[in-house]
């Protein structure tokens, strides 16, 4: 099968790759481009561990075909920190122990950033429903929800 040539923007940088029409964005990120921060927990869009943003919208990268990102803007966990400066959510997750094994953490961070961009002052219920597409089996979600709420409060204070 001949491969397709795709040019796209990932974390602000122009990237090109070859893929088959059937490959997912997650597959290309992980196995072609070496961006393994997005995780495959299910491959069916049920766990959120592969969450990315596509033109600013939160999606599961396992549900998007690689050729579809041609000419679009992709945001992954690898682009969340600015140099050695962590995003406030990343810093808060560390400080409040909002991770245990950490495999779901990239997905939660991308999803939470997307929430705070749309709603800088979410209620606990809004956080819980926004993050309902991300599975975590270690934490019981408690410290994750608290970290997102505290980050939101900090960011509002700083704004």
């Amino acid at each position, binding site marked *: 099968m001949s491969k397709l040539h795709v040019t796209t923007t990932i974390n602000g940088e122009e990237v090109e790759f070859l893929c088959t029409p059937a490959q997912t964005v997650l597959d290309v990120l*992980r*196995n072609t481009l*070496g*961006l*393994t*921060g*997005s*995780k*495959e*927990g*299910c*491959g*069916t869009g*049920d*766990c959120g*561990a592969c969450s990315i943003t596509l033109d600013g919208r939160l999606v599961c990268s396992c549900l998007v075909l690689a050729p579809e990102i041609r000419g679009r803007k992709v945001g*992954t*966990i*690898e682009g*969340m*920190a600015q140099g050695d400066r*962590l995003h406030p959510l*990343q810093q808060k*997750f*560390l*400080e*409040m*122990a909002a*991770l*245990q*094994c*950490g*495999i*779901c*953490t*990239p997905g939660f*961070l991308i999803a939470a950033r997307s929430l705070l961009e749309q709603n800088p002052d979410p209620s606990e*219920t809004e*956080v*819980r*429903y926004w*993050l*309902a*597409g*991300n*599975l*975590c*089996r*270690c*934490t*019981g*979600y*408690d*410290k*994750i*929800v*608290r970290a997102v709420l505290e980050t939101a409060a900090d960011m509002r204070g700083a704004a």
Partner: protein
Amino acid sequence: MNAIDNKWIGQRTIRPDGADKVTGRAGYSADNAMPGMIWAKILRSPHAHANIRGIDTAKAAALPGVKAVVTARDITEFPVDTPVMLGIQDMRWMSRNVMAREKALFHGHPVAAVAAISEEIAAEACRLIEVEYEVLPHVIEIEDAIRPDAPLLHDFLRHEGKPSNIASTMVNKLGDIEAGFASADVIIERSFKTRPVHQGYIEPQACTVSCTADGKVTIWSSSQGQFMVRAMTALLTGIPQSSIRAIPAEIGGGFGAKTVIYLEPIAVLLSRKSGRPVKMVMSRDEVFRATGPTSGSMSTVKIGAKKDGTIVAAQGTFHIQAGCLPGGPVRGPVGCSFAPYEIANVLSVGYDVVSNRSKVTAYRAPGAPLGAYATETVIDELAETLGIDPLELRLKNSAGKGTKAAYGAVFGDVTFKETIQAIRNHPHYAAPLDRAPAKGVRRGRGVASGFWYNAGGESSAQLNITEDGNVTVTTGHPDVGGSRASIANVAAELLGIDHSRVSVLIGDTSSIGFSNLTGGSRVTFASAMVVTQSAEKVITQLRERAAKIWKIEPEAVAWSDGEARPAGANAGQFPPLTLKELAAKANEMGGPIGAGVQLTTTGADPGFATHVVDVEVDEELGIIRVLRYTAAQDVGRALHPDYVEGQIQGGVVQGIGWALSEEYLYDKQGRLDNASFLDYRMPVCSDVPMIEPVVLELPNPKHPQGVRGAGEAPLVPPLAAISNAVYDALGKRFYSLPMSPPKVMEVLGG
């Protein structure tokens, strides 16, 4: 040690592995690649039960791009009549689980594997393998598997002299059970059923391995024990352990399930045949279908008590699913169910029952939640019958110092009472509850307790002082929930230096001494012990170096706040020597500074937990929601409180899933019907409230920091606590799990 004296132990420091995990850099099982790597896939049985008459791999091997094919013939054969134990695992069964030998025993059982230059070609080659099956009748449920006319999985299993699906029986006995019940004023006997639930780790099993021409093997995979990976791979491939280096990748959740392997030996054999590194990654479908969930169960519990609430006899019969091969967690329900209580007469019997399901593996406090579900529900009924508060009834009968448990232990300073008192005194227990907040909505409150043995065992650590006077600590334990953070706190505390100067790593099998599994709530207990001893040795060396420099006796040198200081009136007057100064002079004053300790740790004390929960039942939809949850547990000492709380919060939410929504469902052909996160419903963020942990710290006197263990006990009480709360809401009891909407509607008669 108490909190006031501690600078680092008990502090909420930032975990050593944190930055990598929030930036996506941490290397998990599936994140590795090796130069020249190829991909492997597994062909799985399409039948729940079938004899394998023959396997023809010729067409698959001839497909362009295919580099190697393996079947059970390539794997070490362990005859069924000779046990080969590795810890609690028997390699006779492990071998047959990794690859079907005589028989395919469940839908999804591996039959062959192919390595090829791409995953697609490997998958296509699997489809070209011709397997001749003789399909046999299958059996899935316990009640069917123990019938006299049930299809038998194994002709070598015997129960009471007859061929059977009951693989073994375990009995714990204390006193005279007949006399005990004869003396009771009230006896309650109930039967319960639970379905298997999966551990639900988000990271599927995966590995990358390389076997070179000289027979040296490197394995990169996540597990709950790199030494287990090495030992099992060695046994199943015939390669000596000294030729295998197992590197522990970051682990994306295990909860007991990653104490065994599925892929590594197959990948090693494919790598050896092909001469190429091989990568294998399970899909979620394969994880659900073919890696162990924990057991479903069928239990009967009978408890007799005096009018004043004194429990005089307790009897339990526990049928536990093993899956397709022997080895279910029978010890959990048999030993743990009655252990929290001082009961003179106990008979606890467990049966290990095989059926055509994937082989079960451990899940947090293996088997104990099943037993506690039954026992703690009967105790709730007993309390109601006797008109005694359920916590008071538990307090009255709680085990204490000197209590002999039916499983054999005589307890030391156990702290069950304190967990009950913590819940009784918590505002949650006394808080008003609006029992009927709206039409068709009812609320209730329930409590339950739980017990887990906890464990010691083999652990190794190496603590080195770097040339610039900082510290590296290496242990042999994969970190599933923040153990590195706890160890960093301990090392900084003992050496009296800033936390940021300690780096904690997990060694591979060639760089650190043998360390047993991360499991059973043992790792923080055991690794803190070996790290403490290593630090004490290093401090002795540091005092000797200072003594040498000052030309005084080592006994006249004290170590405090990260410095050597002259101690006592006769030691002389010298300015303190810091760790950095001593490290700088290390080579001229006697050589590198560091110490390792390898130990079989002992002194683990049991863990107890008591929980209270409020639920709300929607009578129209059959949905049960948890509104409030408070969980008290004695952990001995919380070296890092965040990760202790995290263990409790996470365990409770797993319990909520077990109680309300998770179950394995099979179709008539014996195929798992819900092998996805969509259809196998684990709790999501919007399903649960905040979980309030009440962390009690009553130090274990047999541990240097007082640690008991934290990870297992939180999953023991929730099933019964939630079930008791639902009864409190509805006035109707459930005797099977999960309490899913269809079942709620059935019980409500809707």
